[in-house]
């Protein structure tokens, strides 16, 4: 019977598929777990820091201090949890975590403002969660800026210069790509990257090492199948599962979460396919270099699962990482897939904008497969 190139790979793929189908619990988990994660996290995980716990120490108790506090109360950023008596109590609240921000209004606050002078205001922020601390400080700044503008306008009116057109510098803010600044538009596509970073390598990391542990690897060693046949055959069903995961998550993101999607589906699909090959290939690579299933699992955990959230850029814009972090993030394919995903969902644009990222993903796919090919030795011991 004449053989076609890739025939043997297909035969191995058929065997793997059958093996996958015979463990329906496993296959079910492989599809259901990612879906459950996206549903669970997509619905409830929000990075919008709103309702930060704030307490106020009002030594002034004037019209002015009350107006300022009103600004805090009416901001969606803060939730006022208490009006405290003194600095001592305030420190205690920050320490115990009952308040993350304490605003301390000094006794001469109203007097100075009514006299047309500037007044200071103490803000204590809990820095143990730096992001939250920075956000808290920024929110206070925004509230102060708003209050200041009002104060000055009133002052200018009283001094006969109360024309809005005379206000020196005004900012106009336009937000692109995600005009409502909803974090779901940012989390759900991000989760797609994270989930495709975790599950494909986790599933494929067992493929070779399992055969090695059970001894069936000898069958492969003795077979006429080349190393490429073995790798391709093993990878194929898992790339398919991973792509299926992608399709399901994509469907959920569009129809259930109604995430904005302005790009081309096919570009995203190409990216997802390349990325799936990368991640399945990574699993196979781990599988060829480890000696036990357990070691393979742990390596996958530390190599792919643990850094998934940290370095894929789901939370942090790469520009904000420090040099070490930026270096690591530039090293992993997730960063480039994230570019494709965020771009496709939120930015659109033509193919040219995506070509560099897609090419890098392709390069990764080639490099990782070659590394797996090199480390798979058809040899005993």
């Amino acid at each position: 019977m004449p053989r076609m190139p890739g025939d043997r790979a297909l035969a191995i793929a058929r065997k793997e598929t059958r093996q996958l189908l015979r463990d329906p619990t496993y296959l079910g988990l492989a599809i259901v777990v990612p879906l459950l994660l996206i549903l669970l996290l997509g619905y409830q995980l929000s990075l919008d820091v709103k309702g930060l716990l704030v307490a106020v120490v009002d030594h002034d108790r004037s019209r002015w201090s009350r107006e300022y506090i009103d600004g805090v109360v009416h901001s969606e950023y803060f939730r006022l949890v208490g009006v405290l008596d003194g600095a001592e109590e305030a420190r205690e609240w920050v320490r115990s975590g009952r308040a993350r921000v304490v605003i301390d209004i000094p006794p001469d606050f109203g007097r100075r403002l009514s006299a047309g002078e500037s007044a200071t205001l103490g803000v204590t922020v809990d820095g143990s969660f730096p992001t939250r601390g920075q956000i808290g400080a920024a929110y206070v700044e925004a509230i102060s800026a708003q209050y200041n503008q009002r104060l000055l306008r009133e002052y200018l009116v009283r001094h006969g210069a109360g024309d809005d057109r005379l206000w020196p510098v005004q900012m106009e803010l336009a937000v692109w790509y995600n005009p409502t600044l909803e974090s779901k538009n940012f989390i759900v596509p991000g989760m797609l990257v994270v989930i495709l970073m975790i599950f494909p390598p986790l599933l494929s990391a067992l493929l070779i090492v399992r055969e090695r542990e059970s001894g069936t690897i000898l069958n492969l060693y003795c077979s006429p199948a080349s190393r490429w046949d073995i790798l391709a055959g093993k990878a194929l069903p898992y790339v398919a599962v991973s792509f299926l995961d992608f399709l399901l998550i994509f469907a959920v993101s569009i129809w259930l979460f109604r995430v904005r999607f302005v790009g081309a589906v096919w570009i995203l699909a190409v990216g997802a396919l390349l990325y799936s090959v990368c991640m399945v290939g990574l699993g196979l690579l781990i599988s060829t270099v480890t000696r036990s299933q357990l070691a393979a699992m742990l390596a996958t955990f530390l190599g792919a699962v643990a850094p998934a959230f940290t370095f894929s850029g789901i939370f942090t814009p790469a520009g904000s990482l420090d040099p070490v972090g930026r270096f690591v993030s530039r090293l992993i394919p997730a960063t480039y897939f994230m570019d494709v995903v965020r771009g496709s969902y939120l930015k659109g644009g033509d193919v040219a904008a995506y070509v560099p990222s897609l090419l890098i993903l392709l390069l990764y796919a080639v490099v990782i497969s070659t590394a797996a090919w090199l480390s798979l030795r058809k040899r005993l011991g």
Partner: protein
Amino acid sequence: MGSRLAAMIRKEWSQLFRDVPILLFVIWAFTGAVYTGGHGVGAELRNYPMAVLDLSRSAESRELLSRFRAPYFKIVGHVSGDAELVRWLDGGRASLVLVIPADFDRRAQQGGARFQVISDGSQSMSATIAGAHIAGIAGRYSVELLEARMGVAHGRLPQVDARVRVEYNPNLVETWFSGLLEVFNQVTMIAMLLAAAAMVREREHGTIEHLLVSPLRSWELFTAKVVPVVVLVPLAALGSVFGIVHGVFATPIRGSVALFYAVTVIYVFALASLGLTIAVLARNLGQAMLLLLLILYPMMLLSGAFTPPESMGPLMRYASLVSPVRHYVDFGYQVLFKGNGLAYVWPDVAGILALGVLLFAISIRRFARLAR
């Protein structure tokens, strides 16, 4: 009974220590992974890349630009027109573009100057913080211009000046936070993984049958599986806290290390129980890992380290209370970083204890059923 259990523990112990790859992974988890992880997390604004389209090219526009400073902003370049502006934002080279119109200088002096900020909203949190900072910048610049125009001295206009003081981490050093977080996460993951692995291994090698027909009681089997994990992981965590977090990142450790160690032991015990339960439920390693992830990720994301509990949806806020990770993360920061004692962290400790007892009870029941 004593010797039987002791023999079993000895067996587990030497099995763990003979497995070189696993030991290497544990070591990496508490050193290299903590080091790299310490550089990662954080959605805060730092060197936010911004581009400028300055059509005014005046002293006023330069003055405005000079206020976009490190650490928050970084001007990565000037663009010359709308098309280039779109390209920079689309390509992600800049997350924000400042457009200063041609009449900015004249208007700034007479009143009514406007500048436009176009911000990339895809990273919603950073965009929000950036907006807040820029509002502050515009406000302060306006006041200075007004003071100059009206000929009053600085501070002679009714203005509120908020002086921010940051407790515990005055410069908001991100690695102080994320280094510790990484240790807590590794404790969580490794405790569950090692315990689950010890059980799955028996099942896959078929040696579970030997154990089940041996005179070993189910609680003895359980104890033997848990003890090496409970001994090893808290010690590794301590090593990591001192070696990497304090040693390399120079994070101040202000609290009682003994308290941290004691509660970590309880926590590891709780998570190891959970890991064992999963291992008993799963048929093979693959299934065990998937189940583990299903539980691990939501727990870690609800830990309160990414989103403060008060900002979560109500459902998740309550769900997070049954996640031991949330209590542990809160406990860990309070004790190690803020230097709080038991008087502050008892609710967290109580939560960890309660969940520990619950997970232990479930696990023991599962084991008993396994034996039958």
